[in-house]
């Protein structure tokens, strides 16, 4: 059963990686002069939208943490709204953190915010999909030994990798190479994207490697 689940995880993650790669090439067919560096904002939008869409679709198909009870429609709506609010709040939080890290406050607000949205897509949206709008569950998953399924583990790894990617992405900004990708926030968003894809690939491998050690507490 575990093997099968790992394979499923691998498939979904590869799908996500594939979608990220597609976002860098496909829009060029529809939009004139599209390039990841040149029209970075467009790419940010495209990437966040497509990754989030794919994540939601995958969630609806796979239901990694299925709730056995059938809930009413109203409950689902409220859940969805809650998810939206959480997502928006996480965007604001990321924006605030990025500004605290030194991003300009007023200038290039759009860039900063879209970067925050991208980061939220890579981190919060996944959490929302896997765990639902349940803060207690989030805290549980992100404490050291709180993962209950391989999905939780994968979530941990991709989230940490995305944030670390964005963190490392800030390093080249002070260098005086005058390269187009050193402009805020390109290096950071590229770093986050690389981190995210790396996390997506690493997660199944890591779980496969450590499958003997991983024992999940039953719910």
């Amino acid at each position, binding site marked *: 059963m575990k093997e099968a689940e790992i394979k499923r995880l691998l498939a979904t993650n590869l799908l996500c990686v594939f979608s990220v790669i597609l976002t860098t090439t496909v829009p060029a067919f529809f939009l004139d002069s599209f390039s990841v560096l040149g029209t970075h904002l467009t790419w940010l939008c495209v990437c966040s939208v497509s990754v989030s869409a794919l994540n939601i679709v995958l969630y609806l198909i796979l239901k990694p943490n299925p709730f056995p009870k059938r809930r009413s429609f109203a409950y689902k709506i409220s859940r969805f709204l809650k998810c939206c609010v959480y997502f928006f709040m996480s965007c604001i939080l990321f924006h605030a*953190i990025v*500004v*605290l*890290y*030194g991003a300009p*406050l007023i200038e290039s607000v759009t860039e900063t915010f879209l970067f925050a949205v991208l980061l939220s897509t890579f981190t919060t949206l996944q959490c929302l999909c896997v765990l639902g709008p349940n803060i207690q569950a989030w*805290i*549980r998953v992100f*404490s050291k030994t709180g993962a209950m399924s391989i999905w939780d583990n994968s979530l941990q790894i991709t989230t940490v990798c995305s944030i670390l990617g964005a*963190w490392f992405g*800030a390093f080249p*900004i*002070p*260098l*005086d190479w*005058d390269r187009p990708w050193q402009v805020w926030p390109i290096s950071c968003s590229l770093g986050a994207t690389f981190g995210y894809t790396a996390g997506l690939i690493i997660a199944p491998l890591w779980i496969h490697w450590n499958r003997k050690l991983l024992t999940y507490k039953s719910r």
Partner: protein
Amino acid sequence: MRLRSGVFASSCLLVEALGVALFLRGFFPLPVRSVPRSEARRDPPAEPAPPGSGMVSNWTSVPPPLFKKVVIVLIDALRDDFVFGSKGKQFMPYTTQVIEKGTSYSFVAEAKPPTVTMPRIKALMTGSIPGFIDVIVNLNSPALLDDNLIWQAKTAGKRIIFYGDDTWVRLFPKHFVEYDGTTSFFVSDFTEVDDNVTRHLDRVLKREDWDILILHYLGLDHIGHMTGPNSPLVGPKLHEMDNILKKIHISLLSKEGEASLPSLLVVCGDHGMSETGSHGGSSEGEVHTPLLFISSAFEKRSGPITQPKVVQQTDLATTLAVGLGLPISRNSVGNLILPVVGGKTMREQLRFLHLNGFQLSRLLQENTPAYEKDPGYEHFKIAEKSHGNWIKLYLDGNNSEILLNLGKKVLKQYLEALKTLSSSLSKQVAQYDMYSMMVGTVIILEVLFLLLLSTPKALSSRAEFEVPLSPPLFSLLFYLMCLMLCAVHVIVCTSAESLCYFCSMSWLTAVGVMVLISALMCGILSAVGKILESSRLPVKNPVVSNSSWSEVDVLILAGTIGHVLSLGASSFVEEEHQTWYFLINTLCLALCQELCRNHFLVKEGDPQHSINLKQNFENVKEAYECKNIDIPAADDSKLGKVTSSAEFIKGSDKWISLASPWIILICCRLLRSLNQTGVQWAHRPDFGHWLTSSEHKSELSFLAAVSLVMIFILVQRKCSLVSKIAMALGLLGVYSYRAAIGNIIFPWQRDSKDISKGITEARFVYVFVLGIVFTGTKDLLKSQVISADSSVKSIGLWEVYSGLVLLAALLFRPHNLPVLVFCLLIQTIMAKYIWRPLKFDAAQITIMHYWFGQAFFYFQGNSNGIATVDVSAGFVGLDSYVEIPAIFLTAFATYAGPLLWAIHLLCYLSSEVSRNSAAMGHGCFCYALVRSIPVAVYIILVTSLRYHLFIWSVFSPKLLYEGVHVFITATICLFFTAMDQNQSHKVQD
């Protein structure tokens, strides 16, 4: 010998400071310099008096100019083979023709490393070899304050026009009647930089209202940097330059008929380029530049073409000074290039050489005490005597062959003397003193290894360890090593031609240093041996690291290593503040996560956590029971609450605690936008500039007043009543001082009144600073002697700290006062809500303090450039420049951030001693370690990068900052040890 960690660390740091001093002395040789140009503008010397009485030469003034107009075309990175080699023949046909057949003299000018534009321009215009110390001495402004050709020309009423690299405009502000500076910022721009210069040319050449025209072309340098000397772009650029030279030359020739005197065209390069196209080092291609003098005054070249003679780059300044009829710059070490004045009469030529020799010998007199023994000086005296004889013959009206022959002989004597003089002068600054640097580096590295090897023991709970001194000191190895090092010293000092500082020290000192080095080496070896021995023995009590590394630990380690590695890149050095801001931000977020875990996971009832919690809680209770003074009185009321409930921190405190990292983050963000520093984003608008602009004076006054009140509120809570009052008065004094010197205004003061120097007000504050520090010291001494309860000591420490805060408040510019407020605020929050509840150990807290100290160094507006040092702090309360207080005050104001954090660390740890008796020792050791790692690595980096393009602009200033920081850290560690001493006395009692 048993040593405590603190004592060990501070003695290590003292030794390290010695190593750093030696290294700095080797890296920055003292420049050859004369008195500042403002003083003693002595008249030029007369011709040497002929022997015998009664006859006096009547020629006492500076000789008249030889050229009416001078055009200097400086082509950046023009290598000698671009003109004299095959490239020159191919791409510079006109110049080649002028060199081979025209009226010109060509030379190869040798540039001294660092072959970087700015020092080269200085060398060309002052004739001296600029050292880095020059930059420090001229700290107030980037302008060149030394005597130089441009200044002399301007003083003599010459009109100078300049087009080209804006380095000139910064070096010589207000010297040019007309200028257009182009920035060399965009290295990828090959054409625009030069077109910006050439576009003025036609207009200027038509005009008559100038005497000197300087053109500095940057395009070739940019091509070199981007594509190298063999790129196809070089040819067309040389051709463009050739056309420009042709245009200038023809235009000068066409004017010549009208003027009485001929004009001169000088073509030179500031430095060459290496085979890869860069420059800065000392390879053949980088130091050899062409130097052409073209004028109709010269004889037409005939005969076979010879290889151009090698001269020094510094010779240009002297030659041009003579050619323009100006006094030779006082610090010049250049020799007159004789062929340029070859067309003049023998008397004039001898006169020029005498002037040059006189200037050089005077410079030698001012720089070397034993100048009379210098062979150059002796030669000059002999030549001067024969010159006198020659004049006697000349004045007698003798006009024969003898006169000419004697004149030639004198000429030769003079040239010989000049050569010896300038070579012995330029030896003093010519190169890095590698030997001293090596000795310094060895000491520093040994200290670092010693510190690293003793880390596990030093951070053990006892914080003291055995330093095996006697066995290594009596070992054979030690004596062998001493002998070997002394032998090396003798060999190096007797063989090396260069004057080496370490060799010039007395033999006793040198031997002492050698003994020190070998002792350190033996210490390291014995430490290694011990570690190996203990690792071979079976581990008796397996101290398994049950405490695995937390995120904060990982971050601290990664941050330290990352910062050290970042020092290798020039842009990371320029933007080092970004590194620190980034690190402390991440640190705050990591702390936030730690706090969240502490607060939220407890609820889950995780057994391990609850045990931890219980232990923590027990500790707290114990601490309270001990009537520990360090817990502020305000907390005492909560004692009951804490003990009664099982919760760790209750209610509102919990939320404040959770919010505290965010408050700190916001404070840091505000501070960050207060002073934009660094290089790349330094031009961005910031609050600091907004506040200091004159129309925002009232806002600035308001801010200053609020800040001072806040400082009082934050500082007073742990002070005694007397020092509270003193503090309040002192802060009032600070405000009135700033008002007196016109930085800020009193609310009742409408129109700006006359501005004074505020001496009384500043001294008023000094009195209180001294008073508070004195009270604190008295308390400290009392606690040591009478060994009263530790509260006296704690108050004493805090008083010393608040005295320093008051001093910083006085020295900081008013717009920087919020830095002080936030510093105090963050310290308070951190201590109360983060460090104490989370139970960080002394090592972690020390490193956090160090990081924040570094960040505050940049928050207060410092950078790794020399320009940001606030020299005005050295004049606060002083009538005139008094060296020692000025240096002390400037250093204090510059390093106030790190210093205040370090003293706060001391206060915090001393209050922590009751919990962990070794806290002080650990703190001191960690502080020393965390400081020595970057210094040691940076010194090695700088040594290997000494021919880097940015060595003078980026790496050297940083080296200086690091060096001074080491001295300050050594003092702090001594203070630590002294405080620790008290503690140990008391424990023994």
